[in-house]
């Protein structure tokens, strides 16, 4: 334990105390047995995951501030569900999601050769390039070239195929089930409350990275789900990272969370100069007061960030400027492309720089964090190869790896259900 423990509970924190678990409670609830790796190795499990998890659960696909204006859209390829998704803000200001599939003969309405692209629908319509069918951004089929040549065409039934789409704290989720078994609010449950209220939408300056990893998606997810690796894997980029403590374990239905406390690293000389532009002001500096009350409930001064797993493939690391200088929060997402291929997306979110010096300082923080991510990702393909070698059948998990134990158990439960 670092010697900076807060003593007084923060106002409102008691409402979340039922989520907290001691190490003993975690062990009692989740066990201490090794966890089988077969779910990572077996392609048949991946097929089940597609059907029973990814086609049925809420998945974060965008944020409000990515598509702020009417007509703004994002196209996201979801290989895991064999579809392309169009998320668009209609002329009524409402964000909707559709299969990016033309109802004429199936072409993509908005062409996209990347994993995701952004654009703006002019005049609040999107039109398919193949034969020119035109759809409103709220879904209906508006016009068809040479319509009379179809003999009979029931345009009212030929709108874009809508996908359930709901927003939580500015994060836009979709659910491919028709209809979903539960609302987004019910699905997020206490997690949604625990993380609610932070001004996520103010941190609109994003640095995004992605890469395709030759590994099962759970290998990537698990590597970002624990603090055990920090002193070893990050010895290069976080030298002298002192007193890292991964604690405040919380179990929240299919989700879970935990906290990284620590005294931070001894900043290198350049980092000290850059960081001084970000830590010494209210705009970018540490704002522990903005953390929702269930996070860092005793107000410890060595709080670094909250590290949750949001079922099934999303992480929001909420830092409020307390960890890496200036970072409000950062997210990870793990999209299966195939049983053994994964698209990883990592995004650092800052509040907008108010001048050129703050921007450069953010770029320094971002570079340090990106480099730490390079260390994290270095393990993933090797781990997957090792698991496929067939010489180990289980993972040995320690207390700080409980998010992995919890996630693995949840995946099993969903596949069995």
């Amino acid at each position: 334990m670092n010697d900076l423990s807060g003593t007084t509970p923060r106002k409102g924190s008691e409402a979340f105390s039922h989520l907290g678990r001691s190490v003993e409670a975690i062990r009692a609830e989740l066990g201490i047995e090794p966890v089988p790796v077969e779910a990572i190795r077996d392609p048949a499990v991946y097929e089940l995951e597609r059907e029973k998890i990814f086609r049925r659960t809420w998945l974060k696909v965008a944020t409000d501030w990515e598509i702020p204006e009417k007509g703004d859209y994002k196209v996201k390829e979801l290989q895991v569900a064999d579809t392309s998704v169009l998320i668009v803000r209609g002329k009524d200001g409402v964000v909707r999601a559709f299969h990016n599939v033309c109802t004429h003969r199936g072409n993509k309405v908005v062409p996209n050769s990347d994993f995701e692209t952004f654009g703006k629908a002019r005049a609040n319509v999107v039109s398919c390039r193949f034969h020119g069918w035109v759809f409103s951004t709220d879904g209906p089929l508006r016009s068809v070239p040479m319509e009379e040549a179809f003999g009979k065409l029931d345009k009212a039934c030929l709108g874009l195929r809508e996908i359930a789409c709901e927003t939580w704290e500015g994060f836009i989720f979709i659910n491919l089930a028709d209809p979903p078994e539960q609302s987004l609010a019910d699905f997020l449950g206490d997690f949604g409350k625990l993380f609610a209220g932070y001004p996520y939408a103010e941190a609109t300056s994003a640095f995004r990275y992605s890469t395709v990893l030759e590994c099962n998606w759970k290998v990537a997810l698990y590597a970002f789900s624990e603090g055990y690796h920090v002193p070893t894997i990050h010895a290069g980029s976080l030298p002298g990272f002192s007193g890292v403590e991964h604690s405040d374990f919380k179990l929240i239905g299919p989700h879970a969370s935990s906290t990284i406390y620590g005294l931070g690293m001894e900043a290198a000389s350049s980092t000290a100069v850059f960081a001084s532009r970000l830590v010494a002001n209210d705009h970018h500096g540490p704002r522990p007061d903005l953390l929702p009350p269930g996070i860092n409930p005793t107000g410890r001064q060595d709080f670094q960030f909250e590290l949750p797993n949001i079922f099934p493939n999303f992480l929001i690391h909420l830092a409020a400027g307390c960890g890496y200088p200036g970072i409000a929060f950062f997210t990870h997402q793990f999209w299966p492309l195939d049983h053994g291929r994964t698209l990883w997306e990592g995004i650092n979110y800052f509040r907008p720089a108010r001048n050129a010096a703050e921007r450069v300082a953010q770029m320094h923080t971002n570079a340090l964090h990106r480099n730490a991510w390079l260390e994290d990702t270095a393990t993933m393909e090797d781990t997957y190869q090792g698991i496929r070698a067939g010489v180990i059948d289980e993972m040995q998990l320690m207390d700080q790896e409980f998010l992995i134990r919890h996630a693995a158990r949840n995946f099993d439960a969903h596949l069995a259900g």
Partner: protein
Amino acid sequence: MTDTVTLPGRFEDLAPLVATWARPTENARSKIRWSAGPEDFSDFYEVMLPRLPEILDYLATVPLEGMDEADTNLFCLAAAFAEAAPHHELYGGSADVPFSFSARRFVPGHGDVPSWETGRN
């Protein structure tokens, strides 16, 4: 080349570094870093670190929108240093982060966007 580089008055002596290091986008700066050696990093570092507080003091007076050519050059140079300094301080002069995934496989979504544009988020 260097005599065509403009910089705000008191930073004119940094012009040779601008020609070598300063580029507007993350992708362009990464390319330069990936081909740099320990001496390139240490030479850059020795000149820049002592000047950094003064550079940032100046840039703190510059709005990101509508920077003139001289301010843009200084911004790009500071940006290059922001990304290059850890290679000298932490990675022993290596262009790669030791024991890491290939940086060339990481795709920055903003890689070809000038770094002063905060743009699509």
